[in-house]
Each structure stands twice: as structure tokens, then as C-alpha cells.
């Protein structure tokens, strides 16, 4: 069977919030399905071959690091659009979402051209959006838990992946959050999103099985991540 290749991009620059948890958990869940999985760590000194990998992950970085990464990633604009259209998987969390729109307008007023895979635009603000988030997702029946800590807003998004139950969307007073197109998934939620939302990770594993033309096997041993998920909801979102 073909090895499933995960590229953890900019692991040493976009790593503010324990993002390593996402690829480690996804790898474990894929291996539980019997899928041989390898994680490749690539950054700005590497050449990225967008034909080589099946799944691309980018986490959140400081605004300085985000700009450094953008300068590198933008060189691959055409390759990225092709990969998205070929249904390769992208999961981008935190301000990595900013990289894939048309532009990022910095707080100084300077406008940076972004990768342009999508038509949304991002504006850096002088305030931060910080706090826990609770979303409804069309992808799965279980609600999504997460946290945001960012200083940008997103405008002109087409469709949203999540609707806000409690928290903040693309911008304040916006009930929509998350970018989803083919197998591209982007959200401002930070950190180990898949660990905190094991049902969302199951969704990805299921989709990956479809991509690999394999049958998804439901597992009986759920593990502690599921208990953690339900405990959090019980403690914070159950009246």
C-alpha cells in the first residue's frame, strides 16, 4: 500500500501553539487504520514539491514569522492551486489562513500580496481577538472546540466551514468562520485542533481513506482525547 505523506510546513516558524499535536495525532489515527504514514518537516530553506505529499499542515506563527513564510510560500502559488484542485489535503490553523487569501494589509498600512488561492483578504488590526471558541460544523455532528489568539480579521470570504455558537468568526460580530474548498481546510482556531476535536480528526481520517480508496474502519477504543472533549463540553458548554 502506498505510504501517506504528511508535510508539516514551517514547523520551526509557525509553531506558537503546540501545533505538533495535530500531525502526531493524525499520524496515530491513520496508523490505527493500517495506513503507513510519514511526516516530513519542511521550512523556508527547503524546496517544497507539491506533487510529493498528500497532506499539508501549517500552524500559527508570530507576525514577523508569518511574513518570512509568506515570502517563501508565494513562490509556489501555481503549485498550491494545482494541489488544491487535485484534492490534496491542506489543514491550516491560526494565522496560516491569512497566507492563502489575496492579500494581508499590515497594521502599518503596507499591503502584502498573499498566495491568492482564495479571494478573501486579511487586515491586521490594533486589537487582538482572544478567547475560547465553540462552533457548529456541517462536516460532522459534533461541535468544534478551540481557542483563538490573533490580531487580524478576514473579509470577503465566500463560504464558511463553521458557524459560531460562542466566540468570534472571521471578524468581530461575524458568525462565520473557517475556509473549506475541496480538501482545503483553514481555520483561525489555534493549536492542537485535531487532538481537542477527535471527531474532526475521525472525519479527516475517513476522507483520507476515501482519497486512498480504502474502507474506513470504525475503532472501538476511543482513547482519552474523546473523554477530554466531552469533559470540556460538560464543564463549559452544558447548562
Amino acid at each position, binding site marked *: 500500500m502506498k505510504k501517506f505523506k504528511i508535510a508539516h510546513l514551517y514547523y520551526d516558524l509557525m509553531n*506558537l*501553539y503546540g501545533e*505538533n499535536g495535530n500531525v502526531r495525532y493524525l499520524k496515530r489515527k491513520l496508523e490505527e487504520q493500517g495506513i503507513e504514514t510519514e511526516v516530513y518537516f519542511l521550512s523556508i530553506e527547503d524546496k517544497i514539491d507539491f506533487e510529493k505529499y498528500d497532506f499539508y499542515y501549517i500552524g500559527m506563527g508570530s507576525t514577523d514569522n508569518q511574513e518570512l513564510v509568506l515570502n517563501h510560500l508565494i513562490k509556489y502559488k501555481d503549485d498550491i492551486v494545482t494541489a488544491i484542485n487535485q484534492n490534496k489535503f491542506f489543514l491550516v490553523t491560526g494565522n496560516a489562513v491569512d497566507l492563502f487569501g489575496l492579500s494581508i494589509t499590515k497594521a502599518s498600512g503596507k499591503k502584502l500580496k498573499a498566495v491568492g488561492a482564495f479571494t478573501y483578504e486579511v487586515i491586521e488590526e490594533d486589537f487582538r481577538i482572544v478567547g475560547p471558541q465553540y462552533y457548529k460544523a456541517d462536516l460532522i455532528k459534533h461541535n468544534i472546540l478551540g481557542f483563538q489568539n490573533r490580531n487580524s480579521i478576514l473579509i470577503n470570504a465566500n463560504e464558511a466551514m463553521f458557524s459560531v455558537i460562542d466566540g468570534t468568526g472571521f471578524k468581530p460580530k461575524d458568525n462565520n468562520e473557517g475556509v473549506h474548498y475541496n480538501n482545503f481546510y483553514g481555520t483561525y482556531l489555534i493549536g492542537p485542533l485535531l487532538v481537542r476535536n477527535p471527531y474532526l480528526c475521525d472525519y479527516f481520517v475517513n476522507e483520507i481513506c476515501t482519497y486512498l480508496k480504502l474502507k474506513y474502519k470504525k475503532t472501538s477504543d476511543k482513547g482519552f482525547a474523546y473523554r477530554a472533549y466531552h469533559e470540556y463540553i460538560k464543564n463549559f458548554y452544558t447548562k
Partner: protein
Amino acid sequence: MILLNRLITGVCKLFKRNGSVYPGYFIYDILKQHKVLEEVKYPKYVIAISGSSGKGSTTDLVNHILTDAGYDVCYNKSGSNGVLAAVTLILNNCNLKGEFKHDVLLLECDERHLKLIFGKNKITHLAVTNITRDQPPRNGEPDVVFKDILKVVDEKTKLIINADDPLVNTMSFLFNNEKITYGVGKTKDSYLKNRIEATDYAYCPICKSKMVYEYYHYGHIGSYYCKNGDYKRGNPDYEATDVDFEKHSFKINGQSIYLNKDVLYAVYYTVAAYAIAKSMGIEDEVIIKAINDDKTLAKRGKVLSLDGRKLTMLESKNENNLSYYQSIRYIKNQKGKKTIILGFDNVSRRYKFNDLSWLWDVDFELLNDKNIDKIFCIGRFRYDVVTRLSFTGIETDKIVLVDDLNNLLQLVKEESVGDIYTMVCFDMTANIYKLIKDDENEKV
């Protein structure tokens, strides 16, 4: 304002309220006197010590050295390091003409509050200990914190720089000021590769190439250089070497120094204090005598006993992976079998947010050690902690979930051996302390 500050301080003392902060709160927040400190006539030495960690201990030791050297020092010994505490302290130590009454104003300063306490032309000496990820909901990202600190630097400020931190060390080329650098040489705990990529600074600030590390102490702190020759740690002016935790000793520039805690951060605050004292022109002999004469061994944490087993309470700060690293490293360095208690009910005491991301930045893999007998996971986020531990390679039968905290001590007594270490945050430290005291009282 000075009289008002004193009056409120007096009232606070009378009613046993927080007299180190409340007067400042009244003046700064209620009366909106944000520029009240600008009129103060400061003394010859205004020393600010800031950074993500180690600033309090450094400040304590600098006070000790300067006092021994004959200076009249005023400093925030209560550890209140924000703007409100600074307003209270400074105004309480001025005469009615606004003149500061002591030789030295020495302040441990919160990284984000430093710019609120001082404008430019106020600080004569600024020491920055390190900048690492710490309480991101409050502080944002490390770059933002660092830029905030730089706002108080003017051309006359003497800079005391931890050269082991490549972000802090950028001050070496950002400013033409008089500066002194310090650092810690390779120790037995230094390592070559970070297991978890949670470092806050990895690329050369000049050419943006990835820096090469000769060794790491923790996080991004260590000895580094740019492979294009654009930037490096180099040789600090004051370097701690020959660190021997068992003998409580190390050397600074070849001279033997007493170490009052057997942990790396104690080496850092001692060499930092040394460098700060040197920046004021104090003689080596005076500094060394002050450090070496104070032989009181400071404990790493509160030490208690449970059924004859030694129990050390190590407080670990949530949302600060390096605080946990220091606790883990300390436990690793102790001899014999060990039992660990780990967990928390709240991530922070400053805010209600419970972001759990940082659990994945902590190098819990170090606990995969044959001398660790059991790890007891407590608190309402125990399942998140156990999930994280399930990636460390630690055998599952070593990990014990404690659903009811009231059963903790019984479980520890029955199911584990060796010295006990609590590696918990503030809320659980108080809870466990009470459980142990109750347990002791039941036996009497």
C-alpha cells in the same frame, strides 16, 4: 499625588488590604494620572529588570549585592511588578518635592508594563533575562513582548543582555549603547537537538538563514551562530562555566561562585546579577563576597512528607512550557525512584481562558524514564494531560487517573514508591498542601 499615595497606603495597612498595588490603582486607574511618574526626580541609578522568567530572583540578588556594597536600595521585594505596584512604590519613596529618596531604584518589571512605568530617559540600566512564550492570551507573541521592552531604551541606557537568548541578543546590534552581555556555558544537561519544535527564535535576524546551535540549554536559549557569519552568541562578557549542581558551585570568568539552588535558572539569575552589578562599576571582590557569604540554601519548592516519603512541591506555570521543562529537569536530576503528581483545574489565575495548546509544547517525553514509578494525573483537565502523555512512550500502567482529588493521597500511598514531586500550577499546590496537612492531622 505623593501625599494621596501615602494616605491610601496607610489606610490599606490599617485595613490589611493590598497596600503594594491599591494606592497605585487609585491614582493610575481611577484618577487616570497616567503621567504621574514623569514628574519624579529619579536617582542616579534606575535599574529595570524584565523578561519572561527569572526577573524576580535576579532582582532579589541584585538588591542583596548592592546593599552589601553600601548602596541605599529601594526595590519591589513583594514581587508586584506591574505599573500599579510601581506607582505605589515610587511615590511612597519620594519626598514632597518629588525627589526619590534612595540611591537606587531597582524594579522587577512586567514585560508589558515596563513602557507604562517608564518613558524614555528614565532607566539608567536595563537588564533583559529572556523572552519566551508565556501566557499568550495576556502577552501575545514573544516578538510583541520584546518590541514593547525596547520602547524604554534611549541612548544613555546601559543594557545588560542575556547573550544566550538570540532574540534578546539582537539588542547588541540594534543599539549603540554601552552594553554588557552574560551567558551560561555548556552544562551536563545541555543538548544538541530540540525534541519538540517549540522554540521562539530559530533564524538569523540579519540574513534569515537557520541558525546552527552548538548546544541548547532550553527552548531557544543556548549557543548559536549564523552559518553565513552574520550573527552569533559569541563570548559573553560574563560567562558561567563549570556548573556543578551537586556541589552547589560554578565559575564566572574563572572565579568560584556559590549556587544557592541546584537548578539552571539559579545559575542564570546569579550571572545576570553579577553582570548588572559590574555594569554599575562594583568591584568583582565585593560582588563575589556578597554572593558567596549568603550561604542560605534556597529550596526548589516546599518540602513536606507523606508516610515518611519526601514530597517536594514544584510549582510549574501553565502556558509556559519552559517552566514545566525546569521542573521536569529538576526531577530527572534527583536520585532514586520517583512519583509525580501532575494537573490543574484552571489554566490561569489572571483570566478565565483555558487554552490547552501549550501542553504540546512541554517536553513531557523526558518523563519516559525508568526511575519514574508513577504519574498521577489530577484536575479537571486530566484527560487532556493523559492524552498528551500517551504520546511520550511512557508505559500506560505508570499513568494513574485520579477522578476524585480526595482519593489522591491514598492512591499515592498504595500504588507508588519513591520520593514524590508535585508538578502542578498554583491552584493545585494549595489543594494538595491542604490534603497533606489534613492527612497529618488525622494521625495526631
